[in-house]
């Protein structure tokens, strides 16, 4: 049989009854707001109050300010230590203080943090000994602090891999009846990795209490965000996992704290993960070893100076009369003391026992490792004899 043109052209017998009414919009509560949440203007003035994000208490903000100032000073000190050869390398987070400090301030002491290499400031703000934080970068061992005691995973270098660990840890905690939340720091670039996808998805499917906190500082080393994604925002990835998300002005300390506080509360309440994208900027190069002038203009950096999170919060707190010159000076002094003490303690080469290389590969070294340890021991003995 062949189709006659007439038959083909004949009006089709259309269904007359109306189509099933459209289902309710399934993205409600999942999509981020179009604009990053902002509570403080870049000049420090308070914006109109909003119902979704109540202002954090001034006490909390004052403490945030203090930690940001100390954090910035710590960061500068760490950079200085690279110049003195005390640190092999240091990835600065100057400019990202609101995110660094906001992330840890939103948490309870027994919550977990999953940081990257860039979160040295966050970890010191969490109260971890800065010398232990810098162990990785000084080079005496990999992770210098005790992650179990500090409830802080080792700073993660293989990008995005910690997204999955956090899902497992958070699920494991809730499985064991604990209401711990895990907060994952991750960069804009790392969201392109498969492990970001798998981690957020696992967290969502298992309703694990994780806050994924993307510090979008606009660059992955030299690669700008436009090469990373064509999405309206990184926060828009949330809906694809059924995870509510929000964008926040990452240089607005008040907004960062408010948004993360809500995100953490969401997770703790058993509602599953939450995704936050903070729009911020890395003021320094990727690390001291990087040359940022190769890939970005001085103008761009300059423009971000006007959005400095520390000055912004200071202006606001001064305006609220909860911070005056004396207080600012006192905090600056705390910061100086912190830096001086760090400088001192980083002075001098730590000693590490070469035989410790064999101690933690397994709970008990294998026969092969015992053999290799004996060989190294013999070499060291011979060398000592040679020196003597």
């Amino acid at each position, binding site marked *: 049989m062949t189709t006659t043109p007439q038959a083909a052209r004949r009006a089709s017998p259309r269904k007359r009854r109306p189509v099933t009414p459209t289902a309710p919009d399934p993205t409600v509560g999942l999509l981020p707001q179009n604009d990053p949440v902002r509570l403080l203007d870049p000049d420090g003035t308070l914006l109109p109050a909003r119902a979704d994000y109540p202002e954090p208490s001034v006490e909390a903000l004052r403490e945030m300010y203090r930690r940001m100032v100390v954090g910035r000073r710590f960061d500068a000190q760490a950079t200085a230590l690279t110049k003195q050869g005390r640190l092999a390398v240091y990835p600065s987070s100057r400019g990202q203080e609101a995110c660094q400090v906001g992330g840890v301030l939103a948490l309870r002491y027994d919550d977990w943090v999953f940081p990257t290499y860039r979160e040295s400031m966050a970890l010191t703000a969490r109260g971890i000994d800065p010398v232990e934080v810098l162990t990785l970068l000084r080079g005496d061992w990999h992770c210098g602090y005790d*992650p179990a005691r500090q409830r802080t995973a080792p700073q993660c270098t293989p990008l995005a891999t910690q997204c999955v660990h956090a*899902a497992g840890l958070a699920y494991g905690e809730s499985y064991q009846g604990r209401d711990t939340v895990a907060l994952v720091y991750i960069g804009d670039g790392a969201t392109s990795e498969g492990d970001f996808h798998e981690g957020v998805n696992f967290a969502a499917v298992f309703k694990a209490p994780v806050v994924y906190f993307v510090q979008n500082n606009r660059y992955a080393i030299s690669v700008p965000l436009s090469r990373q994604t064509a999405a309206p925002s990184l926060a828009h990835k949330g809906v694809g996992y059924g995870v509510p998300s929000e964008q926040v002005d990452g240089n607005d300390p008040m907004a960062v704290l408010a948004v993360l506080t809500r995100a953490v509360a969401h997770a703790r309440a058993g509602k599953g993960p939450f995704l936050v994208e903070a729009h911020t900027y890395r003021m320094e190069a990727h690390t001291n070893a990087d040359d940022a002038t190769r890939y970005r203009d001085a103008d761009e950096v300059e423009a971000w100076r006007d959005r400095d999170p520390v000055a912004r919060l200071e202006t606001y707190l001064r305006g609220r009369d909860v911070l005056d010159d004396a207080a600012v000076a006192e905090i600056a002094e705390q910061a100086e003391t912190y830096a001086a003490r760090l400088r001192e303690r980083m002075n001098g080469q730590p000693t590490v026992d070469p035989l410790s290389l064999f101690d933690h590969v397994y709970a008990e070294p294998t*026969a092969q490792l015992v053999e290799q340890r004996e060989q190294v021991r013999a070499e060291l003995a011979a060398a000592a004899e040679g020196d003597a």
Partner: protein
Amino acid sequence: MATTMATALNAALADAMLADERVLVFGEDVGQLGGVFRITDGLQARFGDKRCFDTPLAEAGIVGFAVGLAMSGLRPVVEMQFDAFAYPAFEQIASHVAKLRNRTRGALSVPMVIRVPYAGGIGGVEHHCDSSEAYYAHTPGLKVVTPSTVDDAYSLLREAIDDPDPVVFMEPKKLYFAGAETVLPARTEPFGRAVVRRPGRDATLVAYGPAVPVALDAAEAARDEGWDLEVVDVRTIVPFDDATVAASVRRTGRCVVVQEAQGFAGVGAEIAARVQERCFHALHAPVLRVCGLDIPYPAPMLEHTHLPSVDRVLDAVARLQWDDQPDRRWLTEGSAA
């Protein structure tokens, strides 16, 4: 009735879950379905869907999730559905599972088991038959275990789950449904111990996992040729039992390593290197290897050409210089110091 390796593995999982409520079993299709090889059959029904459960289809996710669970104090046992499907998890395994204890000076440990049904001989299509043990064995921080007997399947898996370190537990698929008369629970030699499966005086065949039955068959067939072959089953590739292997080769003076994986830079190379390092003066012939060919695992109709066979093992044994050829060392001596 004979017990199969599949049954033994299933029993080991169940007994471990019973013994320690921190043990969680998860992966793709391990819940309701009981795994594509039914190794987790019945566990979800018995222990509930919080102890044995399916995950999203993502292997890096599964392994990374297990890392987090281990950090929280649990004891995850995960299944990779097939050998080649563990590759997406390679970064998680190599950079995290293997290293976490060391990175943190022991503050965090990862007592987890990654079960990998591996190797061929089952007529599987591509990507379902890789022998991937060398990738793990070459990665410090992992233990790599592979049973060849029903008893070992049970005992080694129980030990793997109890072990404080991460264990890649490689299950030879073609042996899943091979049976043996045994009573479970079985307790065999611990990690780090190779076992002489068949004593012999003339040469040692060193094998593990799917190659062990091949070696045993070859040893049997070798009797016709007048060779009395010893067969050593490695069992735990890491940690490796040098003592048992070297003792055997020192006794027999000859050695053939049999492995199913492609040969180049495989575990068999390590075994050959170790044996000649340790038994040089006892050797009457070089340590030979019978391995899979250095090709991607072939399609079902050609897999028998790829796999180490009894004949190929016997050919290697025949090349072990039985004729007491005169020592030809003088040929090259002139150029030595």
